């Protein structure tokens, strides 16, 4: 379960660059909910995920994961509950470390790190099998540096790392936006598979309306730091891009022209 209560965040307060990024966002997710999030640039989608992950403190409001109030916790202390994949493929992995070392680091998320081996022999086989499921041939490159992988391979690996210790909440922040269309589709399909397999509570930001409609059981649209649309159940299943566009215009009360290109 995830509960966001009246989250507010203003960047650069009291300057000419002041930006109200989150304007009282409340949201409740049940276990197994897979929410897709859309909205124009600067609508607050990524900001919301960062607020949940604790990248910086919020001005007010609460983040409650599974009954634990994590609002006051720093980023690394919230990590045990969260799996995260970022837009930039470089951000989710350590380039100068081996594939297997990256996975082992993720495996120890939420555990105390001591003087035990960084990677055990038993883990090696586990990771080889796991990587084989990706079908990218990474299982034969266990000891290669992650820096040698392509963007798509790195995102697939980051996805595995994020879901290795079944997180309470998976945060996907436009994780296919930097990939070419074919690779993006592959990574997206893989994400959907993993989410379904483990029944993971997920929030996925995307700029692609079709993807937002196709995946997940709930769709949220944000605008100017607020959730302006929340569609679930049967209504979500029967949604079309055109209907979504119309809804957006109605809900936000402004012309879509400027955002049309971004949302198509």
């Amino acid at each position: 379960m995830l509960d966001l209560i009246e989250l507010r965040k203003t960047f650069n307060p009291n300057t000419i660059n002041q930006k109200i990024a989150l304007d009282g966002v409340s949201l409740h997710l049940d276990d197994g909910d897979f929410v897709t999030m859309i909205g124009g640039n600067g609508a607050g989608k990524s900001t919301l995920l960062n607020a949940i992950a604790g990248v910086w403190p919020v001005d007010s409001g609460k983040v409650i994961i599974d009954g634990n109030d994590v609002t006051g916790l720093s980023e690394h202390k919230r990590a045990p509950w969260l799996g995260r994949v970022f837009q930039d493929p470089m951000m989710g992995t350590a380039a100068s470390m081996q594939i297997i070392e990256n996975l082992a680091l993720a495996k120890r998320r939420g555990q105390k790190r001591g003087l035990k081996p960084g990677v055990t022999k038993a883990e090696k086989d586990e990771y080889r099998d796991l990587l084989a499921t990706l079908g990218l041939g990474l299982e034969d490159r266990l000891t290669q540096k992650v820096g040698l992988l392509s963007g798509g391979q790195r995102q697939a690996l980051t996805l595995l790392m994020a879901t290795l210790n079944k997180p309470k909440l998976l945060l996907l922040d436009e994780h296919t936006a930097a990939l070419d269309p074919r690779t993006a589709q592959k990574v997206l399909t893989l994400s959907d598979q993993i989410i379904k397999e483990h029944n993971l509570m997920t929030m996925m930001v995307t700029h692609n309306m079709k993807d937002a409609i196709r995946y997940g059981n709930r769709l949220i649209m944000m605008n100017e730091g607020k959730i302006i649309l929340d569609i679930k159940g049967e209504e979500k299943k029967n949604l079309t891009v055109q209907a979504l566009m119309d809804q957006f215009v109605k809900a936000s009360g402004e012309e879509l022209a400027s955002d049309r290109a971004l949302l198509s």
Partner: protein
Amino acid sequence: MNIGSLISALPGAIAQGLIWGVMAIGVYLTYKVLDIADLTVDGTMATGGAVCVMMLLNGANLWLALLCAVLAGMIAGLVTGLFHTAMGIPAILAGILTQLSLYSVNLAIMGFKANQGINFRTTRILVSSRNVKVIGFENPIFIMIIVTAVLIGILYWFFGREIGSALRATGSNEHMARAQGINVNMAKIIGLMISNGIVALASALYAQYQGAVDVNMGRGGIVIGLAAVIISTVIFGKIFHNFALKLMGVSLGAVIYYIVIQIVLWLGLNTNMLKLLSALVVAVFLAIPYWKGRLTKGAKHA
């Protein structure tokens, strides 16, 4: 110019290179593994010697003196780490502040004298320049090879552990490290403490080797450490991929540095010009990857 005088100076250069190689391994850990340029080491490179010599002068056991030197270095690293993480001071500036304060601290340790000597006859020490041409176990080259090997062994073990991996992840990608639940501030503090502990060990050994500690002993130390790291990257970068071999490469880099310095001195360079030469050589080698990057970028656009 007499080639014989150069050859007779080489064992000394090698021994000094091995001692500074230990220091350079400390620099490597912050500069390459943690991705922090830590200037604390200029101060720590005198602190270790000061603690060790003063303890020996007061009749302390050799090994206890070395241990305390290492601990003193680790405290210096802790201070820089706290300046950086708890007080938000940029890493370079944090190191400079500690380095400056260490000048006073080092003088205080040395009883407010700029240097303190050890009496060879009455004090047992580990490495001494007087034995540099002796064939036997007391030869500092032999002893330093063992010290370096043990140090590399310990570091290789440590950086293969969970904490060590967390340190490497912090240096490689802080963002990823935090997302994986690593306390990156703690990782940086631990890294700085280990690095400065090692530098202080080198300092203690160097003071013994020279038979004295001088408050200015570590001045420009970071440049020598960086030179060793860069020399090893240039010469061994393509062949040494294993972490232990990389550390060995750094040690060899320091030895090469000291041999080159010896040759330059033999060619007649004024000793006082050495620091200028070292700084310029390091500057050029630091620039090479940048220049290479610009060239390849230009080629792509053309």
